[in-house]
């Protein structure tokens, strides 16, 4: 009897477990949505990020937003799969002899997704909207080389005075203050894409949600907020026949483990982020793609406050950073140890030369030279009045809360303490507070990172001019300022690049920042997905993909 009771109990318990789990397990027949369906319909499922903050071309500042905008809109120029800037909505363009007047002739066959023709005035409206203070666009400075842009942004002139005019329905003429080497790239930048005045006038801020009229290869046909955005081919697009997927579904996810699970289960053909702790295993398995990215991870010294008002101290702190250790053992994402501030991937005088390769290393990042670097650092610290780190005040390193930044902070703390004999504490703040603190100069050493807006080293160098809005190091050097100012007004490519190398020489001699590594872009892609490409700014292009059987 007793035995029977026990058996019964066991059976009950088991039955309960099974009934609970059975609810989950009996649906074997229902398979997840396949990535590639019948050959005539190719529905691509990808994940690049979570819900975008905005998909308004003039308001967006994010990389994921730019990818979404690139699928729905097209500018005067665009980036092709070879990485070249080629005419897009413009059929052709010409530049006058001074290099300051660009004339774009629009294609005849371009239409908005509601069938209206795309006119030159649509570009004029979008560019004026970008600099209009009422729009409050954070990327308005992207076109600060256009005549009157700075005055309009400062509220001194009316947006209608911007140096862009519609000569007729098909001709856009843009006048610049100075010749700008990377201007065509600006004409391919999402913030400069055309938008429809009548739509925005009618819908106001709600237009992206209620009437998202666009002129690019795809149209947003379904948006389930926080879940997915479904893009379908835009039948009005002139190049609709050469497009790949019939639909592209951008899943909106923010959990990297969930992304990886969905990729492994075959539900997603592309994920733009992976869990940091999985990187070594994924690298080993060879399923992870690592691409260079135009960006630098660095620490920023507050050059106005002792002890970091002394360049020798800053240099000492920079030299003892074992960049190889951080890249290989901590970050583990295939990053490149930084031997300078401007990262790899930006063009030099000849577009085929790399600015970084020409500029060379400012200190050795070879493993075998690390001991010598440390010796030199101790020497510098001693010269600054702190032999063996004695009497050096305790300093604080601040980073924004994140597992990855924390691991690097701990490594840095360890290197500084062991090699220099100084005391370093580490502290963190959440992102919004951190940005505020760093911007206000309430720090001694802070984490920093910078990604390029366009392929020109000035995108990195002009932030350190005296009083610059992003100059959180409060760095100031008159020679540096003069060089940057000369670069910004020069039209001669050789002269510009030479001066930028000279500016970087000064920057690295003063060392207001200690570069750690150059960023990489990590993603996973289904090996059968062909025709995918990405830009050095991290934008992803799915419109010409196909799925091999």
């Amino acid at each position, binding site marked *: 009897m007793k035995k029977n009771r026990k058996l019964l109990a066991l059976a*009950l318990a088991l039955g309960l477990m099974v009934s609970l789990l059975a609810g989950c*397990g009996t649906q074997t027949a229902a398979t997840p949505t396949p990535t590639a369906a019948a050959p005539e319909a190719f529905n691509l499922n990808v994940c690049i990020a979570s819900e975008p903050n905005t998909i308004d071309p003039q308001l967006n*500042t994010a990389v994921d937003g730019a990818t979404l905008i690139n699928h729905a809109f097209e500018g005067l120029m665009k980036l092709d799969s070879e990485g070249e800037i080629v005419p897009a909505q413009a059929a052709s363009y010409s530049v006058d002899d001074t290099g300051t007047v660009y004339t774009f002739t629009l294609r005849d066959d371009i239409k908005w997704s509601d069938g209206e023709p795309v006119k030159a005035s649509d570009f004029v409206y979008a560019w004026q909207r970008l600099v209009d203070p009422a729009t409050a666009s954070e990327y308005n400075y992207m076109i600060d080389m256009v005549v009157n842009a700075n005055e309009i*942004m400062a509220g001194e002139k009316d947006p209608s005075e911007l140096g862009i005019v519609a000569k007729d329905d098909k001709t856009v003429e843009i006048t610049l203050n100075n010749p700008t080497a990377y201007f065509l790239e600006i004409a391919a930048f999402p913030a400069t894409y055309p938008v429809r005045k009548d739509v925005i006038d009618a819908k106001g801020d709600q237009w992206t949600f209620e009437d998202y009229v666009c002129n690019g290869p795809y149209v947003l046909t379904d948006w389930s907020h926080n879940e997915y955005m479904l893009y379908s081919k835009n039948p009005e697009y002139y190049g609709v026949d050469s497009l790949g997927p019939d639909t592209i579904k951008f*899943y909106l996810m923010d959990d990297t483990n*969930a992304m990886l*699970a969905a990729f492994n289960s075959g539900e997603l053909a592309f994920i733009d982020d992976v869990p940091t702790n999985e990187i070594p295993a994924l690298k080993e398995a060879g399923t992870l793609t690592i691409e260079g990215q135009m960006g630098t991870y660095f620490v920023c010294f507050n050059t106005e406050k002792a002890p970091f008002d002394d360049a020798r101290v800053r240099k000492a702190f920079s030299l003892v950073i074992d960049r190889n250790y951080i890249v290989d053992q901590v970050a583990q994402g295939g990053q490149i140890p930084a031997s300078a501030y401007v990262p790899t991937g930006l063009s030099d005088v000849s577009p085929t030369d790399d600015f970084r390769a020409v500029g060379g290393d400012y200190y050795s990042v070879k493993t075998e030279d690390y001991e010598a670097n440390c010796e030199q650092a101790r020497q510098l610290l001693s010269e600054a009045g702190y032999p063996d780190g004695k009497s050096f005040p305790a300093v604080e390193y601040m980073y924004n809360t994140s597992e990855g930044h924390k691991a690097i902070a701990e490594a840095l703390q360890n290197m500084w303490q062991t090699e220099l004999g100084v005391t370093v504490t580490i502290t963190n703040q959440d992102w*919004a507070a951190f940005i*505020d603190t760093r911007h206000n100069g309430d720090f001694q050493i802070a984490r920093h990172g910078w990604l390029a807006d366009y392929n020109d080293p000035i995108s990195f160098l002009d932030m350190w001019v005296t009083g610059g809005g992003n100059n959180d190091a409060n760095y100031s050097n008159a020679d540096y300022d003069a060089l940057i100012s000369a670069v910004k007004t020069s039209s001669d490519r050789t002269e510009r690049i030479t001066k930028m190398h000279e500016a970087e020489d000064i920057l690295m001699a003063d060392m207001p920042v200690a570069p750690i590594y150059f960023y990489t872009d990590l993603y996973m892609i289904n090996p059968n997905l062909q025709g995918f490409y990405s830009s050095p700014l991290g934008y992803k292009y799915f419109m010409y993909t196909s799925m091999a059987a």
Partner: protein
Amino acid sequence: MVKYILKRILMAAVTVLLIACITFGLMNMVPGGPFLSEKAPSQAVLDALNEKYGLDQPVIVQLKNYLIHAAQGDFGVSFKMQKNRPVTTIISELFPISAKVGAIALVFAVLIGVPIGCIEAYFRGKAVDNALTVISTIGIAIPTFVVATMLLILFGVVWKVLPTVGLTTWQSYLMPCFSLGLYPMCYVARLTRSSMLDAIGQDYIKTARAKGLPTNRIIFKHALRNSLIPVITYLGPLTAYILTGGFVVEKVFSIGGLGRYFIQSLLNRDYPLIMGTTIFLAIIIVTMNLIVDILYKVVDPRINLTKGVD
């Protein structure tokens, strides 16, 4: 009863108002703001943004304006997370998703949790009780994210029998609802068991036994009703939290619900969204508490609602 309810509703309104004011104050005291980013916007842009969204006013004026607009049903637009989208639209769109998953999880928790508790009490000290106790204790001890991740890996990745992303088919509800409901189910079972044991020891149960009523009738009819009060007390706030979204479950299964907005809006300093989600949660909690108090009366007629308030 009606007087009591009216009084409670009035108190609830005052509570929500207080919560709104305190949240508004705290939110503005936290350093950082919604418009800061790695690439610092120019002062002109910042000024334009502050003016556009009314942040150029003193905090007390902002609060006054907010309350006046909120009273008219206008809770402002999101500053950042869904830039320029009305907060009411965002909440009314996301809440049903969270509520659906939450409601299923809740029903599952109660419908299975309560009977398990009864069975445990019925077999007190026996093997069945011990086995179920072990299982429910494990269910309470394992954090939701472990359950959710394990299910995701087993059913989604290894066996590939259930979808891992979003809520498209009914199968996609299984893992999220189970993960969300497991803890409350086990907790409800434990609660039911202990209060049931209390009830079984009462005189009226002895009377029922003496009258020769069958045991299952005693347990499920007479004892259960009285042992439900602690469960109902627990269910009030639980319902509020579970309906507004399980943050972890929504994250792991990529469900576009309200849950993650509670935390994300704060990290983004998306002021109107912080206010909107907080006030919304506050309203649900005070409502649930009211319902719970009324339910007490239903399960136990001896409870006098008007007493103690007057």
